[in-house]
């Protein structure tokens, strides 16, 4: 926009065109800058006139100051005389239009009109909504609320939703029936259907609060944490291998198990964040806090021969900064690695300031292809041993307390012993108690100390290792890297720092990862709570309030219900970052409880109005877990090294480097074949095919939203994969053993998978299949036996082969049907 090149006669024409537009514009509805204008400026103008503009002479349209600056006798926006604003002229200019005629993204007529209307209404600027800290607004009026505490919280959600429904002249959909609702809530909270007894209990409980009680049971089940953890592991790109080149094994699964515990224990999310980013920097960090720092170590790494360590020091850090952006800020920071962000107000310097928080961690930038890629620590290897370890700590503490009490009783022990006791560390006190010729040998403390010591030692022996974060004693220097090239540092060394548009760095906080965590969890942070709430909404309703959960920036979508998002974000914080509280609000809301049936009275295929309940295909892990659960195969063991269920042979070998220790897939045996899918071994360069077939990410980079595809190969997987055939057989065995007639067996099958009995049509279809298959397998017992030999779980030999095979075909089919694989 440097040259005014239009000629006078054309100007006249433009003016006439403008006059028409002015009329139209002035009649239009009020423009909301952040909602209506900023996305246009960002998408169509900022490429040249945005935050990344190198040329200081260039017009900037990303701030009012820039837009109103004097361009030599004219202004892009002239607040004194709006009609003279250059934007208006150039918008409609024939010979010198903006954006220029050859622009990759021209303006649409509608966008021109909006821009014109905006100028005519004053050309005011406002901050992008996501950069303004959320406040609680009153649902109807949109004004800030003072008294929401007194309002029943879950009905608040409905009030926000109802406001938009009312504007369309529609109401909520009717409630889903109770059984469907129980299934829905159980899937959303625990990733599995309700247990049959639980379902019956709920359906029989006609008293008020029955649903709330079901919710509490689900929230308190250990499956809750396992299910919720999955989403987090996608976001932080958890994997069991290094990810690059050899893609060797990496020992970090205790982190995964810690995430499960954190959710089950309802660790406040602010602490959940703080421990992960900076547990090692907390005073006297606990083992759990250190395990949590595995977050910092989650970046894919390499030890490729010839790779340059300094380059990977930077690549590892790019990955960490950009993952931080996705996970906590709901924003890509990637652009700012090489130049200031094109759209969002994030400068390249700010990117490298953020990077500086991570640039001083102690591990080598190359992983040495090592399982124990230091720094590591020794920790219990699964949930049971974790609990055992915690109990032991408690026993030790209690013993030492009692011993201290006993010692301080006058005359029990000599002065020397009392003194030695008080000068000893906890560790040494236990040793003292356990000393074979020691002063306590005759007390009952001695025996207990011996036992505890022995137990501690054997527990330690069974420890595994996990990667943790530590800082170097002297921080590394961080500078801006020209074009993101590791060998082109420029400018002064940078102090670690934050993105200014997202609030202040907390005063007094240290410039370390701990300070970074304090910034993220500070009450005024505009993004973190919103971003978390948005993803919690997404996993409950299937789609998020901001439909681009990975982008809250200028190019992202606006929230479907902005005030609802803000209200929930504030509520999350005010509740003490209480995840279970938030989920409780969501699943108890009327919005959640609506029937999932599509409505004839509205055209809203994406359910942006939330005028019906959630309806979507379940995730890969859930599909597998449901089958294992229904068939009774599911092994409840929690935690530990990733498990390797059936997988077609040769998949890893076909890709792997001969030197890789993950080139051979060694399938597990016994119960390990039947663990929950959360525990399936995650080789990043080749995850389990039944996971990727159903849209699981590779975990090489952050994923906060999985696609939900619908492909023919999924059909093949559902019907043919070994584990699915095996679970169908075990489910058939269960039906045959538990019930002695077809009707009841089908009832049980449908109750397990759909929480209801089959309809007449469904029943007829299943019976027909059963009949066809019975005839077939009676005629071909060999075929029946072949089918029943899939999978390692032993066959119940007391059952008739043909009948079991026929039922296996039925269960395999129903397990693959939308009755079983959808949330509704």
């Amino acid at each position: 926009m440097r040259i005014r090149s239009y000629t006078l006669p054309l100007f006249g024409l433009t003016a006439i065109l403008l006059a028409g537009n002015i009329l139209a514009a002035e009649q239009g509805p009020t423009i909301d800058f952040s909602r209506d204008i900023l996305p246009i400026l960002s998408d169509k103008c900022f490429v040249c006139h945005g935050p990344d503009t190198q040329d200081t002479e260039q017009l900037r349209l990303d701030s009012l100051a820039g837009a109103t600056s004097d361009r030599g006798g004219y202004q892009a926006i002239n607040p004194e005389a709006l009609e003279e604003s250059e934007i208006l002229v150039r918008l409609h200019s024939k010979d010198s239009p903006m954006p220029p005629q050859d622009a990759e993204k021209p303006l649409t007529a509608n966008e021109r009109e909006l821009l014109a209307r905006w100028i005519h209404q004053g050309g005011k600027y406002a901050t992008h909504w996501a950069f303004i800290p959320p406040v609680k607004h009153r649902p109807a009026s949109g004004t800030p609320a003072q008294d929401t505490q007194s309002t029943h919280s879950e009905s608040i959600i409905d009030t926000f939703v109802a406001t938009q429904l009312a504007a369309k002249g529609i109401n909520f959909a009717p409630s889903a029936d109770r059984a469907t609702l129980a299934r829905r809530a159980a899937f959303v909270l625990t990733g599995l259907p309700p247990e049959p007894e639980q379902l019956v209990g709920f359906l029989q409980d006609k008293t008020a609060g029955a649903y709330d009680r079901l919710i509490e049971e689900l929230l308190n089940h250990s499956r809750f944490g396992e299910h919720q953890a999955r989403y987090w592991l996608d976001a932080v790109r958890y994997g069991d291998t290094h990810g690059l080149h050899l893609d060797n094994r990496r020992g970090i699964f205790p982190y995964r198990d810690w995430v499960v515990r954190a959710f089950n224990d309802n660790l406040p999310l602010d602490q959940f964040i703080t421990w992960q980013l900076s547990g090692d920097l907390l005073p006297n960090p606990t083992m759990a806090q250190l395990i949590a720092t595995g977050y910092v170590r989650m970046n894919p790494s390499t030890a490729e021969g010839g790779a340059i360590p300094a380059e990977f020091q930077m690549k590892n850090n790019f990955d960490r900064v950009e993952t931080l952006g996705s996970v906590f800020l709901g924003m890509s920071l990637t652009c700012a690695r090489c130049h200031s962000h094109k759209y969002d107000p994030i400068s390249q310097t700010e990117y490298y300031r953020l990077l500086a928080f991570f640039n001083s961690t102690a591990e080598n930038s190359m992983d040495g292809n090592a399982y124990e890629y230091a720094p590591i620590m020794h920790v219990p290897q699964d949930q049971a041993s974790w609990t055992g370890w915690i109990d032991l700590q408690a026993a030790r503490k209690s013993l030492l307390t009692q011993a201290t009490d006993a010692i301080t009783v006058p005359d029990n022990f000599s002065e020397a012993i009392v003194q030695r006791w008080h000068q000893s560390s906890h560790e040494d006190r236990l040793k003292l108690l356990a000393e074979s010729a020691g002063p306590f040998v005759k007390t009952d403390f001695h025996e207990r100390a011996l036992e505890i010591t022995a137990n501690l030692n054997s527990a330690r022996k069974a420890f595994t290792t996990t990667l943790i974060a530590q800082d170097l004693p002297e921080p590394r220097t961080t500078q801006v890297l020209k074009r993101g090239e590791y060998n082109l540092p420029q400018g002064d060394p940078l102090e670690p720092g934050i993105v200014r548009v997202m609030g202040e760095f907390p005063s007094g906080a240290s410039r370390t990862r701990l300070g970074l965590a304090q910034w993220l969890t500070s009450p005024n942070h505009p993004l973190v709570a919103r971003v978390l709430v948005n993803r919690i909404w997404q996993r409950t309703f299937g789609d998020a309030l901001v439909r681009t959960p990975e982008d809250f920036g200028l190019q992202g979508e606006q929230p479907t219900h902005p005030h609802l998002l803000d209200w929930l974000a504030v509520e999350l914080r005010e509740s003490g970052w209480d995840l279970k509280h938030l989920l409780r609000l969501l699943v108890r809301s009327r919005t959640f409880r609506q029937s999932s049936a599509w409505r004839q009275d509205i055209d809203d295929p994406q359910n942006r109005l939330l005028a019906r309940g959630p309806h979507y295909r379940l995730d890969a892990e859930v599909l597998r877990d449901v089958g294992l659960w229904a068939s009774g195969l599911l092994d409840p063991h929690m935690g530990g090294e990733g498990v390797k269920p059936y997988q077609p042979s040769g998949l890893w070998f076909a890709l792997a480097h001969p030197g890789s220790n993950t080139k051979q897939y060694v399938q597990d045996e016994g119960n390990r074949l039947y663990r929950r899918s959360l525990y399936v071994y995650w080789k990043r360069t080749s995850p389990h095919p039944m996971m990727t077939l159903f849209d699981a990410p590779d975990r090489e980079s952050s994923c906060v939203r999985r696609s939900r595809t619908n492909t023919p190969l999924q059909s093949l997987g559902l019907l043919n994969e070994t584990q699915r055939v095996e679970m169908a057989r075990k489910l058939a065995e269960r039906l045959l053993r538990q019930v002695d007639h077809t009707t009841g067996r089908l009832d049980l099958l449908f109750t397990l998978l759909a929480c209801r009995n089959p309809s007449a049509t469904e029943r007829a279809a299943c019976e027909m299949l059963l009949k066809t298959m019975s005839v077939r397998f009676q005629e071909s017992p060999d075929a029946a036996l072949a089918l029943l030999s899939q999978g390692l779980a032993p066959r119940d030999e007391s059952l008739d082969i043909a009948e079991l095979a026929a039922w296996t075909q039925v269960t395999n089919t129903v397990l693959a049907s939308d009755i079983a694989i959808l949330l509704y």
Partner: protein
Amino acid sequence: MHRPFQDHSLMLTRRQLFGRAALGLGTASIAHLMHDRAKSHEQDASEGLHHPAKAKSVIYLFMSGGPSHHDLWSYKPKMTEMFGKQLPEHIRDGQRITGMTANQQNGLPVCPSKYKYTQQDNHDRGVWVSELLPFTATVAKELCVVHSTFTEAINHDPAITYIQTGSQIPGRPSLGAWLSYGLGTMNENLPHYVVMHAKSNHAEQSLFNRLWGTGFLSADHQGILMRSQGDPVLFLSNPSGVSQADRRAQLDALTTLNQEQHKQFGDPEILARIRQHEMAYRMQTSIPELMDFSSETEETFELYGEAAKTPGTFAACCLNARRLVERGVRNIQIFHRGWDAHGSLPAEHESQCKDVDQACAALIKDLKRSGMLDETLIIWGGEFGRTAYCQGGLTKENYGRDHHPRCFTTWMAGGGIKPGITYGHTDDYAYNIADEHGDPLFPQPTKEEWTPGTMHIHDLNATILHLLGIDHKRLTYRYQGRDFRLTDVHGHIMHDLIA
């Protein structure tokens, strides 16, 4: 024809319309848009997505590990005189080299190729081909040999990720996924994007799912592995004991169950899934039929070589590629590992060339005789080249070469490519891309500028897309606020190579 990119664009438009509905601008044109989509199914592949396509299908013969241009394509007689002498400083020009040779004791001794070259006639000035590629030499008149391909990455993982996804860091969609997204499918009974791993005696570098993965694109654009072991496509076969008639009975029941579900909930996805189940059923016939080579003539096997009868060989993969193209599959990649010759290059490359040479030539001849070469783009190349200097001990008979990103040779054929030409020059050491006088060009492409005579890997990818009717600047997908594309903000279409 099903076209995901157009569908996606429509979804965006639709979303924008719904978004704008709040402003009172209406949603009237949705039906119109849907109508347009229906029309796109009937489009001919040659119409292209953005402009008429020169090629309907692409077969990418990827030589993973980095084939040595010195020993295959770059005839540099002057290097012979320099045998064992240090590479002149000005040639290297301060370039960073990998940690494997940066500090080796014998420095950087010049390593001429031990192989004889002969000049083959083409439609240009002729092309020099090494004796390691006797069969490929016979199709010189079909090849467009580019000596000036280059990249910035010097290690396998970043380099192969770069050439296949446009970024050295994992997380982006692969070339194949972009093509799938842009091209859609012409045969719904076969996977739309097929990846094969050919056997090699020296499979020493790893491959990664990300090379045919979808990054942030929807997961249905991922490459489908067609394997020589077990099921050709994962989970294709019914469990033992289950016949196709049994499966039919299952699917009939399944359809009824899903229709019931649809009656109750009305989600169109359910109907789509019913169709996918049926398509899967058809694939159970069409894929085994595809993999059954018994209808191929002896003459064809002579063309491809005996190895084509052994599943999983490069030759069998090439023959399969032709069969796929015949059946309307548009997007095929064959990965052949083992080109990373750090130590015993002659032994390894001889074996590698034996794997691929005859089949490459056969594929071209075979497509040509059936009239399909014109609409099938074939690309042959690796992620980088190899060094002019020796890695490890140098003798006349044995040597090794390290990774070399500054220039390497890629060839293309068919599908709108100028046949029988060479493109680009290198200096006397095939170390730097040079002008026709041998003076180095040191290309540093920017968004606006491109150095004639050079082909950055982004340029290669832009050209592949162009030939298939796709504008690499317009095939975009918005993720995290950015309209991503395969070529990032780079890429120049190599018009000089296009017929």
